[in-house]
């Protein structure tokens, strides 16, 4: 079973990223559960979206020891780093996380937000870049399933941009696998 934790700031779209990942897992024929936790604020504050992916039925719906942690804010990184299991995979957005924690993990450090803003021209797709990056880094689900899931969820007219964002992230992740 994969336990994936996507953490960052409210408003970055990490809950949506988690939903897309879980939907991709279903397209890939897997069992999955997605949960989230956030503070009372709609924007800002540390937020976390969790996805479990398994070939078997999943009993317990929360991550107990994350195989993969995505950190897209310094606060979230500091707060949730303890969830990552030893030898797990850490994906950090170096645009926003300046201090990397000391950790026994395989680290993928990418300027995700910078890539979204400057290379793709829209900071809104940072979550999709991140999703691609961690999927590529950890071989979670088939890229084809992920692409299908992304396209089913994103607003009309942004399909190409999001597809590009996903593929950009995926390639960067895969290169470090």
């Amino acid at each position, binding site marked *: 079973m994969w336990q994936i934790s996507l953490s960052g700031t409210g408003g970055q779209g990490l809950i949506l990223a988690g939903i897309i990942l*879980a939907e991709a897992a*279903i397209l890939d024929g*897997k069992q*999955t*559960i997605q*949960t989230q936790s956030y*503070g009372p604020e709609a924007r800002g504050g540390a937020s976390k979206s969790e996805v479990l992916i398994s070939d078997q039925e999943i009993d*317990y719906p929360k991550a107990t020891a994350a195989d993969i942690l995505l950190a897209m804010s310094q606060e979230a990184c500091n707060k949730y780093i303890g969830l990552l299991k030893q030898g797990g995979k850490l994906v950090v957005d170096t645009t926003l996380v300046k201090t990397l924690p000391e950790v026994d993990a395989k680290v993928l450090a990418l300027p995700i937000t910078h890539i979204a803003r400057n290379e793709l021209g829209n900071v809104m797709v940072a979550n999709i870049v991140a999703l691609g990056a961690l999927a590529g880094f950890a071989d979670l689900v088939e890229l084809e399933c992920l692409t299908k899931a992304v396209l089913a969820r994103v607003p009309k007219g942004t399909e190409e941009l999001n597809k590009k964002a996903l593929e950009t992230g995926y390639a960067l992740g895969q290169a470090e696998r």
Partner: protein
Amino acid sequence: MTKARLMQGNQACAEGALAAGVRFFGGYPITPSTEVAEILAEKLPALGGKFIQMEDEIASMGAVCGAALTGVKALTATSGPGFSLKQELIGYASIAEIPVVIVNVQRLGPSTGKPTSPGQGDVMQARWGSHGDRGVIALSPASVRECFDVTVKAVNFSEKFRTPVVLLLDEVIGHMRERVELPEPDEIEIIDRKLPAVPPSEYQAYKPEADGIPPMAAFGSGYYYHVTGLVHNYLGQPTQANDLTAELIERLHTKIDNAKEELTLYTEHYLDDAEVLVVSYGGSARAAIAAVKAAREQGIKAGLLKLITIWPFPGDVVKQAAAKVKKVIVPEMNYGQLAGEIERYVGQDKVVSVTRVDGELFKPEEILAPIVTAVGGAK
């Protein structure tokens, strides 16, 4: 079966309501139940149904009662603070025998408590929240699929037994998204309320039939009758008569108690050879089943009785499951509410109440530990 998709518990609840024939929703926004309202606001109009966001929780309870009197299946959704406010008219719906479903996605309380964190502290409020004596039906699902199925059951039970039915979700189950395959419409059993078989001139709105339930005519269908929260006679008119009073209050219990077998829903997991029994429900049951499996891996014969029906309390089922075991572990995200009820059936000595009241779901090891202790340590 429809194809698999990702769905949230609250959404499955809304879909279950629609599948059961609910065509009226009155509600007020409150976390973590709001998705139920939002989804129904979007979906009801296409089905010719009605959605209204009322000015408060009491008003939404009144609106669903009013709608139900016209023959429509009606549902409202809330969380603890709203459930407290709704109690007044839940009691009204009980005595006036109005079928409505109240979804309560439980969060940690009392009061405003911890809005986005799960709790199961409304189990006793569902039973005793409204003043006076009355029978109560309350159901608690533990998965997204169960949210769908149990909502259909809740609507069916409310219609069949002419009573408010409480659906006790919790934040874990309500907000969790899970892979789910929903049944096709023709696979779903739908129950409609019993209509009068006599002409209007002979209709007595509150005269029970053999099953203890009076047939219910819809407003506007030519059957005139009076509906009141006062103790009433068979015509629905207020009465002070002691015999009619006792008969009515007793019937509010017996019409439910007599159908206990039909109303009792639960699932059994590894009970056949179990030496230690876990009884749980809702979100806690997800940690409980993981703990039971972990115990089995250690060679401990643990089993889980997962209750879906909370009220009327399935005491006989619990008693039977507990007969052969040494201990009954009861994990719940409250301070031991249902554990107390279980003690009434299996004795205080046998019950180990496991509580968590910080607004987080149990970790499986927190339930595994008392299981291990119950059998005298690790094997």
